[in-house]
């Protein structure tokens, strides 16, 4: 296998299964718990996150590559704007979320309502920022290109979606269970998420 193909595998399988954003990096727990009560909303959220994360990866890696990491010389000192990374990334993500929100409200008011506060909260979803930052820090020959970063963003989002959909179907089942009062709701969800994370640990070492 060439280096690129093997890195491609690392990026895809790694992001979806092995280093799953939710179940192994524990990023994006807020929407993971918040919008996983129903499979339908979870699917909607997954779509939104895939959209935002892929685009955010693309846009920010472009900005990062062609603007922020470009060295320039001012008064004999070589400098770059890397220190602006976090700021710019957040601006990009926030605008993308805003876009999704505006479009969704028009296209599917029902989904918009059921996602509620968690839609604007994608902005602060650490999974998205984490993904973008990981892209900016990547050293691999593939991931450090803008298309590699986009693939990584997409796969991470798919991993997030996978975890979210699995978890929401489990929670729909938990809805029917007679969970002891003290453990109802978030408590039992966290227990379930923990066991789910244990199951995902089986993938470790695959890539």
């Amino acid at each position, binding site marked *: 296998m060439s280096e690129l193909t093997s890195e491609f595998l690392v990026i895809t399988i790694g992001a979806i299964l092995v280093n799953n954003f939710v179940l192994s990096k524990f990023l994006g727990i807020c929407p993971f718990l918040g919008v996983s009560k129903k*499979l339908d909303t979870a699917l909607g959220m997954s779509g939104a996150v895939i959209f935002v994360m892929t685009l955010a990866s693309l846009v920010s890696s472009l900005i990062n590559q062609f603007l922020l990491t470009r060295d320039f010389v001012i008064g004999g000192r070589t400098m770059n704007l890397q220190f602006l990374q976090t700021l710019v990334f957040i601006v990009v993500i926030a605008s993308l979320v805003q876009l999704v929100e505006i479009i969704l409200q028009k296209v599917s008011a029902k989904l918009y309502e059921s996602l509620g506060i968690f839609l604007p909260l994608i902005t602060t979803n650490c999974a998205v920022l984490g993904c973008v930052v990981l892209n900016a820090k990547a050293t691999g020959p593939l991931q450090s290109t803008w298309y590699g970063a986009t693939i990584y963003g997409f796969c991470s989002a798919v991993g997030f979606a996978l975890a979210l*959909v*699995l978890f929401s*179907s*489990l929670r*729909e*089942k*938990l809805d*029917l*269970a*007679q*969970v*002891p009062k003290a*453990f109802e709701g978030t408590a*039992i969800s966290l*227990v*379930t998420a923990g*066991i*789910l994370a*244990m*199951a*995902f*640990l*089986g*993938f*470790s*070492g*695959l890539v």
Partner: protein
Amino acid sequence: MSEQESTPSIRLPDPARLVVSNSPHMRSGENISRIMFTVVAAMLPACAVGIWFFGLAAVWVLLACTVSCVVFEEGWNKLNKRPSTWKDGSAIITGILLGMNLNAGTPWWVCVIGAFLAIILAKQLFGGLGYNPFNPALVARVGLLIGLPELMTTWNPTHAMVSTLGAADAVSAATPLAMAPGKVEVLQMLIGNTKGCLGETSAIALLIGGAVLLIFKLIKWQVPVAFIGSVAVITGIMHAIDPTTYHSPVVHILSGGLLLGAFFMATDMVTSPMTRKGAIIFGLGCGIMTSVIRLWGSYPEGVSFSILFMNALTPLIDRMTVQKPFGYVAPEKGKVA
């Protein structure tokens, strides 16, 4: 005569003691504990072989697991003022299964921790029997494997191995899966004279148990067949490509917890899909994931992880495989029912 009032010699039912309920008014006589204890019986051959090869140590592990499972179950019931449930046999099954998934020399406190994970964390927190989305014994095994990897991946040699190889060699001997391909003695694996968890070594005993389950229709045949079949196919292909790195499918099937998992854990009714179609998907998923983890993953054994992962997928599979009713007609679009 008919004109007279009923003669006192004719006794009629007392209406006040008649129960009203919905039909049907007969039942097949099947109940949960009967099912559960049949499963226990089906596990006994494998346990017996484990005890034969590993000796008293195996007895202690099985006992410690079963007793602590029952104690945790009853303790929880008492604590929550729920009716006693150990008699339905599910806690006993969990205990024995957990024991079978442990090394014969496992310390007692590990058994107790496992029982806690299984009964309290994986079962009672979700509302008890029937509501747990994950197989309790598997949660315990995987939990212990992650938490105590050293303890969970060293195995006692069998008595027979000690006598043939000598104590030192026997202790350092590898499990079949960890050996170099082509050096595995298939016959020893069939009878169970290899290293491994105490209940998973003997293929023959497990097959007998599986046959019992199938005969009493306690499991769906689709699950073990799809599970074992897909492992055979995938490992077979890899073996054909490169026999020096990859074991033959026979070794894969007979080694590790595959048979135990395929017959006793993947088939757990509560955590596997209900329809036949779902069962096939479930078995295939288990098989594929087990093969992938065994061939390329960092853990030597993928059965527990794969079943646990498929447990998580079960609600989705159930949703996808809702069967069409007899005489089903697709609802016309646009027509409001």
